[in-house]
């Protein structure tokens, strides 16, 4: 066996009223290499202990003034958490007396007359115990310090995370959400923001890992989400950027499962991308079959930019329909038998809670019934349409003076097939037009109209898609599948965008012409049809007419022009 690593000499307090015994014991202990201090009664022993803090105490049981039992109690109290072993010196032999020694806080006893070998062994054994206790205390304190430190880090991370997850427009009237306190820190992230045209982007994400790592990843994700949404980028571009950013900064084993969606209040659609999240649900107000918004992609941050898949799905949305997204905390909740709550049980809750106002409570109750306790890491969000007329597009805030507004210029852009396939020029065009200060109060309308004209030129012109397909839900998904297919295979075609800005009175006028390479159509025939207000197509034309000062189509249907006017300069 190895010798004890550090057998430092101890300071040993010896208390005995018998001077001979005291001296005898002192010399034995000194010979073993320890320092000795002595007392002749309990009272003195306590005094010495207070002053010199010896590491070990040899205490006679029977002493005048104060006996060993009382002294032992006081010394143990003074020693606090540290172990100061007390060995009783006793000629007592009855069991009761020995028990009293231990009851008073003694750790061992030594019978008189003293046996040197046994005494040395006992001192060593007690010293080992003493060290062990000291180590335990030291480690406990270290763990406590680390724990406090960690808690503080988590508090800071949570504060940052809360800021990120609770900015945006989660308080909009069409959003209902629930994030249990621990969900945030479980890496769940819920973001919502308006686009310049008044649509809403919503992201429910779930980072691998908890606490600090999740908060670290959430920051760039939120930044991309809010920044690009405000500038008018679509889901595909935002997703590509998020994925590339996370791939770049996160370690290989970390990623973010996410569902990103765009609620389009004007078009009455919801566009969805789901990578790694549980199914979302589209509940129909008329009781028809609910649509599962299924994960079709790898989570964000896994694939390199070149292999990332940004294809989205588009579904028609009617007033009263609701979109529900939830975190894996719901279906992965398990009970004592290790069964998961699962999708089937969730769908049963849907069937028994038709009222969207009480669905969250219903789900939470079902989880609690299933598990026997409530769950603290669940995120859910429920979304509906809001009346587009009542929803003013968010106005942006500018800080420049308005002295350098460009008021007399024109430009033409031609976007060809290769560009149309992968690039959305609208955020750039919008940014350019924002330089005209008089137009800024109409930026939402301007963006809505531009987006409408651009997607018409692309979908009906270049890609030759027939909007009549969108009459029913099946045709609707067929339409968007075809759109993806044809866009991916596009080799020819163009969209030209002419912009002309002229001063007019105290204000000015912007004329936009959008021209495409498609076959065109007969405007008199097609536009003469009264677009049905609640149908799935025909809204676009109405929208353009409502939001711009004037609008018109060329005779061949290949180009459309709109004008925006403003009355004052800033």
């Amino acid at each position, binding site marked *: 066996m190895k010798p004890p690593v550090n057998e430092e000499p101890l300071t040993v307090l010896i208390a005995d009223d018998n001077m001979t015994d005291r001296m005898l014991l002192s010399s034995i202990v000194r010979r073993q290499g320890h320092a000795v201090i002595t007392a002749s009664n309990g009272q003195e022993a306590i005094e010495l202990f207070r002053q010199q803090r010896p590491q070990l105490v040899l205490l006679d049981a029977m002493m005048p003034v104060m006996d060993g039992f009382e002294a032992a109690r006081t010394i143990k109290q003074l020693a606090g958490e540290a172990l100061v072993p007390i060995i009783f010196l006793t000629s007592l032999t009855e069991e009761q007396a020995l028990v009293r020694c231990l009851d008073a806080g003694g750790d061992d006893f030594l019978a008189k007359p003293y046996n040197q070998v046994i005494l040395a062994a006992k001192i060593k054994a007690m010293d080992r115990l003493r060290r062990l206790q000291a180590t335990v205390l030291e480690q406990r304190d270290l763990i406590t310090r680390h724990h406090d430190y960690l808690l503080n880090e988590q508090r800071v991370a949570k504060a940052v995370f809360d800021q990120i997850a609770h900015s945006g427009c989660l308080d909009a009237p069409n959003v209902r959400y629930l994030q249990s306190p621990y969900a945030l820190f479980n890496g769940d992230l819920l973001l919502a923001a308006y686009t310049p045209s008044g649509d809403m982007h919503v992201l429910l994400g*779930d980072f*691998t*890992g908890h606490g600090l790592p999740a908060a670290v990843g959430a920051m760039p994700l939120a930044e991309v989400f809010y920044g690009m949404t405000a500038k008018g980028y679509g889901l595909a571009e935002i997703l590509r950027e998020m994925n590339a950013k996370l791939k770049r900064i996160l370690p*290989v*084993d*970390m*990623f973010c*499962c996410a569902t990103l969606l765009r609620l389009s209040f004007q078009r009455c659609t919801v566009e969805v991308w789901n*990578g*790694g*999240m*549980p199914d979302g649900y589209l509940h129909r107000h008329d009781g028809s079959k609910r649509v599962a918004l299924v*994960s*079709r*992609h*790898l*989570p964000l941050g*896994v694939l*390199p930019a070149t*292999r990332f898949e940004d294809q989205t799905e588009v579904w028609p949305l009617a007033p009263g329909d609701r979109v529900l997204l939830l975190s*894996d905390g719901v279906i992965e909740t398990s009970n*004592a038998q*290790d069964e*998961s709550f699962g999708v089937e049980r969730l769908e049963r809750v849907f069937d028994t809670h038709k009222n969207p106002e009480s669905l969250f409570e219903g789900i939470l109750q079902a989880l609690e019934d299933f598990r026997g306790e409530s769950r603290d890491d669940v995120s859910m969000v429920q979304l509906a349409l809001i009346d587009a007329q009542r929803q003013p597009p968010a106005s942006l805030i500018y800080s420049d003076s308005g002295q350098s507004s460009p008021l007399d210029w024109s430009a033409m852009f031609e976007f060809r097939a290769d560009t149309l396939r992968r690039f959305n020029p609208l955020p750039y065009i919008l940014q350019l037009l924002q330089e005209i200060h008089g137009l800024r109060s109409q930026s939402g309308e301007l963006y809505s109209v531009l987006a409408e004209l651009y997607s018409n030129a692309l979908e009906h012109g270049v890609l030759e898609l027939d909007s009549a397909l969108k009459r029913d839900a099946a045709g609707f998904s067929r339409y968007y599948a075809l759109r993806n297919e044809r866009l991916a295979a596009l080799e020819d075609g163009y969209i030209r965008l002419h912009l002309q800005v002229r001063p007019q009175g105290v204000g000015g006028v912007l004329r936009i012409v959008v021209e495409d390479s498609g076959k065109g159509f007969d405007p008199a025939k097609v536009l003469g049809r009264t677009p049905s207000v609640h149908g799935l197509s025909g809204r676009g034309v109405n929208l353009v007419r409502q939001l711009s000062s004037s609008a018109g189509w060329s005779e061949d249907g290949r180009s459309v022009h709109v004008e925006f006017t403003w009355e004052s300069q800033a």
Partner: protein
Amino acid sequence: MAVTQSSVSHSYNGENNTSSIAVKGRFDFSLHQQFRESYEREGKSTRYVVDLNETTYMDSSALGMLLLLRDHAGGDHADITLSNISSDVRKILAISNFDKLFNIP
């Protein structure tokens, strides 16, 4: 509730240069070290098989560990098969679309 200890075992077949890693019990963060060691101990194999026959559960950190293995095995050129998958684990892999990265028979 009885808690069975999760574990990772590893074997290597020199004939076809294939490493087999079997995960037993709950595949979660507690196996991080063991799982990593199981493939780092040997040199690089051409093929990897992760046997999930006795895997009862898999969380997102397990998915992360599979990504680490994939990275170790050559990233996009990795040849990794996840075998003997129970229906519960299959659901988890399906939601994450990991079939785009791993062979899942």
